[in-house]
């Protein structure tokens, strides 16, 4: 008989366990366990940037890494890229320990940390050429990434003449030069105009669809909700939740129905008479019933001659969940 069980008979017990784990568990391209980073202050004492963060990023798709300013997102990314040494904890990327073995996998990791750091007096193309040499990428690859981010016609201009959005796109082009399996983008929509935000959003989505893992940190929640498949929310250096976007949204619980009427106070009384609790929320009523009970609301109001101008499920969005979770963690919203 052929297949994995037979194949496993020729390897050691430890290796068999490793292979079995890989078979039954999803592959994580990024694993962070108990990450802690402290900075010493000049006048004594320490600032804790990351306080015991645990994080698992599965392979493929877009992973949103959310948190308010100062939550530890950039510090975590710097630790992942070996730029900053953790005070404690363990990091792995593409199966390699970071920072010790990072050099072995870095060719498969593209990244932008905060603003893309490029030589301002060099042209966009020259900046890419310098980086392309490191991984042996040729001019065809440079042409391709410039085309992809829409900078082909400005490639010979000095980077200092680029807008912030163009620099951001050039940074993404640089990250794509490696044809990476993992892309780490720190606040990629920062400073972009609405058109630039849409462009970057589409780019991130398409990269995720190609099977790459795109790890995007952001405090612009609507952006992440539109692009990410999974998210982790951190506050004060710790993860407060993580998982598929829908699962995270569901942690907010059912938020009921929103009912639009001309006279909310009269509608509230009519619903109370029918045994349905409702609260007035500006010009609407918020009814604490599941979506499949909407008919009982319409019936109760219609019987009193009150007709609806709006009836919809009050869905939680990422911003609401984020605010709830970060408020619980005792931090300010972004």
């Amino acid at each position, binding site marked *: 008989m052929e297949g994995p069980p037979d194949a496993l008979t020729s390897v050691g017990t430890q290796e068999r366990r490793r292979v079995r784990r890989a078979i039954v568990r999803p592959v994580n391209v990024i694993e962070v366990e108990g990450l802690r980073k402290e900075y010493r202050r000049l006048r004594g004492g320490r600032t804790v940037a990351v306080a015991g963060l645990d994080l698992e990023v599965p392979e493929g798709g877009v992973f949103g890494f959310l948190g308010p300013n100062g939550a530890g997102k950039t510090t975590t990314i*710097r630790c992942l890229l070996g730029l900053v040494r953790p005070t404690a904890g363990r990091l792995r990327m593409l199966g390699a320990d970071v920072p010790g073995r990072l*050099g072995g996998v870095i060719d498969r990791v593209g990244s932008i940390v905060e603003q893309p*750091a490029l030589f301002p007096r060099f042209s966009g193309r020259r900046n890419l050429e310098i980086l392309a040499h490191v991984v042996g990428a040729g001019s065809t690859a440079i042409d391709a990434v410039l085309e992809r981010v829409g900078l082909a016609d400005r490639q010979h201009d000095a980077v200092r003449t680029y807008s912030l959005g163009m620099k951001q796109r050039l940074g993404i082009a640089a990250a794509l030069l490696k044809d990476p399996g993992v892309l780490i983008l720190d606040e990629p929509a920062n400073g972009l105009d609405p058109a630039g935000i849409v462009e970057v959003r589409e780019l991130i989505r398409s990269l995720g669809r190609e099977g790459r893992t795109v790890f995007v940190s952001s405090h612009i929640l609507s952006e992440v909700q539109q692009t990410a498949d999974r998210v982790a929310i951190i506050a004060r250096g710790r993860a407060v939740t993580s998982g598929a976007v829908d699962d995270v949204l569901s942690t907010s619980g059912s938020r009921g129905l929103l009912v639009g009427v001309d006279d909310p106070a009269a509608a509230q009384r009519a619903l109370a008479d029918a045994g349905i609790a409702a609260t007035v929320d500006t010009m609407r009523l918020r009814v604490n019933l599941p979506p499949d009970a909407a008919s009982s609301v319409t019936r109760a109001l219609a019987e009193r001659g009150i007709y609806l101008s709006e009836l919809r499920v009050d869905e939680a969005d990422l911003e609401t969940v984020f605010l709830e979770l970060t408020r619980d963690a005792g931090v300010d919203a972004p």
Partner: protein
Amino acid sequence: MTGLIRSELLRARSRRIVWVLTVASIAGIVVGVTIAMANSRPPTDRQIERATAQHARDLEGCIAEGPYGDGELPPGSSSVEEYCEQNVRIEFYLPNDDIKLADTPEILEGASFMLALLAIVLGASLAGADWSTGTMTTVLAWEPRRVRVWLVRAIVVAAVLAIVLVVVQAVFTAAWFVGTTVSGTTETGRGFGGSVTNALWVGTVVAVAFGLVAHALASVGRSTIAGVGVIVGYAIIVEGFVAGFVEDLAPRLLIRAATVVISGNPMLSRGATVAYAPDGSLVGTEGAAVLLSVEGAWVVVGAYVVTLGLLAIALFQRRDVQ
């Protein structure tokens, strides 16, 4: 590794400061030689005729009677003929109002510290720019093995500096040759080519060493100004002030050791009586202790480069990059 070297070479080649300083140095040479040519007054045929006759008489007399008239030789000389040929030279009999090709090695020696200054600025800039622009983050996101990054950069800096310095000196030598041919004296003594080559490579190596020291200091201080500033501060405070009070310290100091290397003469204790040949080489000493030999000076210069390089690597490896 090869890719990283190519990347660093392209980066260094693309830096404007490398080209600006190289072109400025060449422009300075051209202007300087042009001014020297304009002020040069080559000897007339009559002056040459008189000088040649006088030189021939004195040389003959020197060989016949010895330098002191008693046949005795000064220390360091192996024969009367050799001593006289070295010390009774035709140029001593000619008016010294013209530029001379024979001066090339001395001028190159004298220009060594200008070259070192050029190397210091370039060496520091090639390290400091990455910190001021934040591109060190990008570099390390592409190659996180920091020791490798630092060593490759040091090799590239040394190579770029060597090329720039050789080009600048070659341009000077060529310009000086043209200048002395057009408006000066082109006679040279024996071993002229060797002296020029020696001055050129010693000047290059010493300047590259200074450039690497500045590179290491800029890497530690994470700025170009730190690299240049520390060397200037060191030159003023340690070499200029402290060493004046502590003689024992002098043989361990970078600039003094570099001076020994460039001049080719050892550092001697105070109060010594020394004799120099016309070409500047030491031919005799009396009552002097050698504080630092030329070979020892090479070791001191090398020790500075290696020690500061290791310090820079250790800190680069250990510190966070924000």
